């Protein structure tokens, strides 16, 4: 019997060797940039570490006690929830509408798709600074237009009043997230077979019936994932808030991430900042698990 050629398996043929090798970069990345900071943050939250005195002393739940007694913390939590819920509702409705415009076949749709994605691709620091000017108390072009059209007598001070400041922050954040969500939902819409859309037309379904009975149910898993991403991004985001208002006026737009930053870095109390940040973790985890579970249930068509 002649021996089969190349019968000895090489190292690269062995799954037990290759699989861990290929997983390694991802694992290193996650450990270095996700797991380690998370463990550190949790450790800090139970310590008295400050910027001035980095020696680690265990203080138990003292930091949590302190932040729970802090009215600004509760205000920030409330703001975070308002910020997330309202901007996500706006994002879903607007992104769905935008996706339906993007999927339509028209001349120059590639240019439109590109332009629509721009807010997402622009660094938040740049676009938020641009919005800072748009909403400026003296030079705001929005005010100028409204004044010219006769809707307002004098400038609005978008970022200077409690409710308006919150509305402005939500608007800018929505503006930023909508393109991403729209593209995700667009992918979902494209994945609906043409035959199904044609069948709905033949079956006499008009625009609204097709929307609520065909496209929405079929894209629901995708919309849920887009919402999960959006909610996580919103819940943990402080870029828009920090650049536009620094949490002001009077903490009216203070959210948990910006407050954690203010406490931990601004005032140097790393331990309390960490406690605020860690407080977010179980909330996010619960939300993610809930959404992913419902998605899995929906996907079993």
């Amino acid at each position, binding site marked *: 019997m002649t021996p089969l050629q190349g019968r000895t398996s090489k190292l690269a043929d062995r799954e037990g060797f290759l699989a861990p090798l290929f997983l390694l970069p991802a694992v290193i990345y996650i450990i270095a940039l996700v797991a380690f900071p998370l463990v550190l943050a949790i450790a800090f939250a139970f310590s008295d570490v400050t910027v001035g005195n980095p020696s680690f002393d265990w203080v138990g739940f003292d930091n949590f006690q302190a932040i729970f007694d802090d009215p600004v913390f509760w205000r920030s939590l409330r703001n975070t929830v308002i910020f997330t819920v309202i901007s996500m509702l706006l994002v879903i409705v607007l992104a769905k509408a935008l996706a339906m415009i993007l999927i339509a076949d028209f001349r120059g749709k590639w240019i439109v798709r590109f332009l629509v994605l721009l807010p997402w691709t622009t660094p938040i620091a740049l676009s938020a600074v641009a919005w800072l000017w748009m909403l400026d108390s003296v030079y705001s072009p929005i005010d100028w237009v409204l004044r010219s059209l006769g809707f307002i007598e004098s400038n609005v001070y978008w970022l200077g009043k409690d409710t308006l400041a919150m509305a402005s922050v939500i608007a800018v954040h929505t503006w930023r997230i909508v393109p991403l969500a729209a593209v995700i939902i667009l992918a979902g819409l494209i994945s609906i077979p043409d*035959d199904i859309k044609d*069948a709905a037309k033949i079956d*006499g*379904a008009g625009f609204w019936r097709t929307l609520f009975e065909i496209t929405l149910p079929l894209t629901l898993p995708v919309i849920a994932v887009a919402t999960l991403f959006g909610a996580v991004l919103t819940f943990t985001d402080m870029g828009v808030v920090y650049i536009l208002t620094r949490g002001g006026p009077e903490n009216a737009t203070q959210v948990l991430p910006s407050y954690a930053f203010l406490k931990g870095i601004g005032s140097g109390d790393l331990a309390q900042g960490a406690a605020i940040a860690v407080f977010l973790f179980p909330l996010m985890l619960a939300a993610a698990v809930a959404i992913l579970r419902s998605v899995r249930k929906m996907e079993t*068509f």
Partner: protein
Amino acid sequence: MAALAVAVRNLEKRYHGADRNAVDGVDIETTEGEYLVLLGPSGCGKTTLLRTIAGLEQATAGEVLIGGNVVNGLPPRARQVAMVFQSYALYPHKSVLQNIAFPLKAEKIHKAEREKKARWAAGLLGIEPLLDRKPRQLSGGERQRVALARALVREPSVFLLDEPLSNLDAKLRASARDELKQFQDNVGTTTIYVTHDQAEAMGLGDRIAVMYEGRIRQIGPPREVYEDPADTFVATFLGSPPMNLVKRDGHLVGFRPENLLPADVVEGNGSSLTARLDIARIEYLSGDRHVYGTLRGIGEETRVIARLPATVTVPLEDGDERQFAIHERDLRFFDAESGEQTAPQPVRA
């Protein structure tokens, strides 16, 4: 004569950016209750024609008439048509009952009435036990029935079927074809059926319209289209194996493989044409013998196929040279340039 159900007048359809018409000047008329099959190779425009009749595509030129009214520009829902798609296009998130009842929602029919009609349609197709299932829990054949029930439930004036059997496996396809024919006989609704499968076309159609490159090459009853093809495209597209074509001074002589038989079994020797066949190869296919060989003596030497039924038991071997004959009434003549059928030509020197 029965009333016109669907008529298409000089219909043209060109897609955006295409350099030729997908449907290029088609005229068709179907009568009430007729089963018309659009047959052609892929890309011949048959599905586009069907979709234009359905209203899923708008005609570039020409008219579509349903029940005597021009329906150009009307959306599908206003055309009283029902369509079954190749993929069946069942709504995956809806139960079978909801799928079947869905077209009735648009007609603003009361919920109880909707359910009653859906059950009636399901009953006609024998799928009542499946009503609570989701499409993914059904077999291919069951999905096809659900799609048919959904088409039927509105009692449309026309059924449009786009290759409804091509997703079934070969064995199921034969029985599904039979059921489809019975179903149409019971319901009696005008049907336009698109397929590339000639067996389906021959088996189902009252008439067959053979399409190629956006045009109808021939329209007629299956037998006529098969026996008397209008041109060489139809002659070679229909039939398996296809019609043999032999070149002979400026025209083509055509004959079906089953008409080329050993000379001693062709009856009426006086009116038959005899030629020598050098047998290259014999295939034995479900009772028939397919004989491949080179034919000399009719025109130019040509590779031809003869199909001998099981009743012809003449022993033949590879490499034999035999006299074969064709009855003159089975000969067809085509213009060598245009490929169109011409009047019979003299075949004897």
